């Protein structure tokens, strides 16, 4: 089951570039929330701050409060502990090339020291089914390398990998941007089903995608959160002129 995320006064820097400025926002539990905006607006940085991936870059830093459920992730937990609660799907599929499909899916468990074979088997089946990949790969789970799948399958495997650790929140950083239309629609269907069980935050540059999958949408511009509201409101009656310009295609 997912938890809500409360963000207060979040600021982030890459070197001397101030990439996120005073972000305040509440992401409700068990819903999909879309983040849109032109490239370089800070939306990817924002999701990377939600599981403290942002700070893996030596020149990056962040200040502010991010509460995941009851936990202030910057003060009350280590990055590693937070990332185990938060699944992340990246822009390009990134399977571990040396591992089989099976090992890829449960890598989050195995690399953290989980050894119970029965539960591992169950988890692989559950996650692959959730990611709608089970039927396609169940016969060569341990035979094929994760890197041998097609791009869309790889991305779904990466989603299964993120789901295998039973996360509370699922972050997706433009998960379909490197995929063909058919795979994209499969991923969107998936998000639609998963959002009843997990809190999903999805970054996208595709406004139709945001409209299709998300209840709430935030619009980022130049490191600031310009507007955050229900998706319907954002796309039909935005409060801010800049949001309107963006969704009507006047820039970006």
């Amino acid at each position, binding site marked *: *089951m997912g*938890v*809500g995320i409360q963000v207060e006064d979040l600021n982030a820097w890459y070197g001397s570039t101030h990439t996120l400025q005073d972000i305040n926002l509440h992401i409700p*539990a068990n819903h999909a929330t879309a983040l849109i905006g032109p490239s370089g607006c800070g939306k990817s940085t924002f999701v990377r701050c939600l599981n403290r991936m942002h*700070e*893996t*870059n*030596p*020149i*990056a*830093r*962040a*200040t*502010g409060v991010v509460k*995941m*459920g*009851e*936990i202030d992730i*910057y*003060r*009350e*937990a*280590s*990055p*590693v*502990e937070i990332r*185990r*609660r938060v699944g992340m799907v990246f822009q390009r599929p990134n399977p571990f090339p040396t591992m089989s499909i099976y090992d890829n899916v449960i890598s989050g*468990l195995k690399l*953290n*020291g*989980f050894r*119970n074979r029965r*539960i591992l088997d169950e*988890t692989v089946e559950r996650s692959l089914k959730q990611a709608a990949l089970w039927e396609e790969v169940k016969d060569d789970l341990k035979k094929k390398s994760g890197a041998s799948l097609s791009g869309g399958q790889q991305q779904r495997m990466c989603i299964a990998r993120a789901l*295998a*650790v*039973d996360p*509370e929140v699922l972050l997706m950083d433009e998960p379909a941007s490197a995929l063909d239309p058919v795979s994209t629609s499969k991923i969107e269907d998936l998000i639609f089903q998963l959002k009843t069980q997990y809190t999903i935050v999805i970054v996208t540059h595709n406004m139709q995608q945001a409209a299709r999958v998300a209840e709430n949408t935030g619009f980022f511009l130049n490191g600031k959160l310009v507007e955050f509201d229900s998706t319907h409101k954002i796309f039909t009656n935005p409060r801010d002129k800049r949001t309107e310009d963006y969704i009507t295609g006047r820039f970006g």
Partner: protein
Amino acid sequence: MPVKPAVSVVASPAAEKTTPSSPAPVSPVREFLNTRGSGRLADTSFAALMLACACSIFVIVLFIFWILIQNSHLSLAAFGWKFFTREAWDPVSGDFGALPFIYGTLATSLLALAMAVPLALGVAIFLTELCPRPLRAPISFLTELLAAIPSVVYGLWAVFVLVPIMRDTLGPFLVKTLGWTGFFEGANFGVGLLTASIILAIMILPIISSLTRDIMTAVPHSQREAVLALGATRWEMIRIGVLRNSRIGIVGAVMLGLGRALGETMAVTMVIGNHPEIHKSLFAPGYTLASVIANEFAEATGDLYYSALIEIGLALFLVTIVVNAVARLMVWAVTRGAPSRAS
């Protein structure tokens, strides 16, 4: 290691409690993951271990330096700087000077460079600019093999193949054609400075040519096209578009070859004749810094003798360090520094 975020991050055990907002039964997977700690101790010790191993490289270099200084203090005290300008080498009376070895080292290394550099440049130009594509990989592979042959094998080959050639064919030929220069006088036994230089040249060729090739490949294609578009011939394109852009790197590559030639021991020891005298003739036997150590170290009986040999090692160490450091900086400047200079 990541820079510490501005907010202070303190792991608190309280964070391990499951969130009250999820009353549903916790899955075994989640239960297990929640019990795993932050791994901070393991992370810190791992980083420290890796850092220690990396620093061991510094320690090794400093240690070599320190040991050599320690063990050569007798000779340093006895002869001072004069050690490097004295010609005497008399273990019996305890009178030591390194000049003959310095001469031998410089003479063989520079002569080797003079032979190897034009050839290496030719090979590099051939490989990057002229060579038909299917031949490129095999030829560069062969030159790399040349670099992998151990010094002692070169020495073996030199002793049994090169020395007879020098004695019977090449030597007399040189006397006849270039005898008037005075560099080819005296008895020619096949061993001597020239033979050592030739084998050194063969040994450093692959290093220089493969590095030069890398450097020339790093020159952006646009530079070549820019020159060709002006109507230049291929040679003019190579001279202006390629060589001029990569000359610092090529000098660096040549210096790396020099560094190797200065310290080369076995092959030189086997063919240089091992005689601590300074002769103008290239047929004369000589001695290098490295080969005197190889030959006499095991028999160095007196403390001063031993100390003098260590001091020679110290000199060799310092000179090669400097040559290599300068050379590396030059090569780095070209291969990783911005290759796309505005044209």
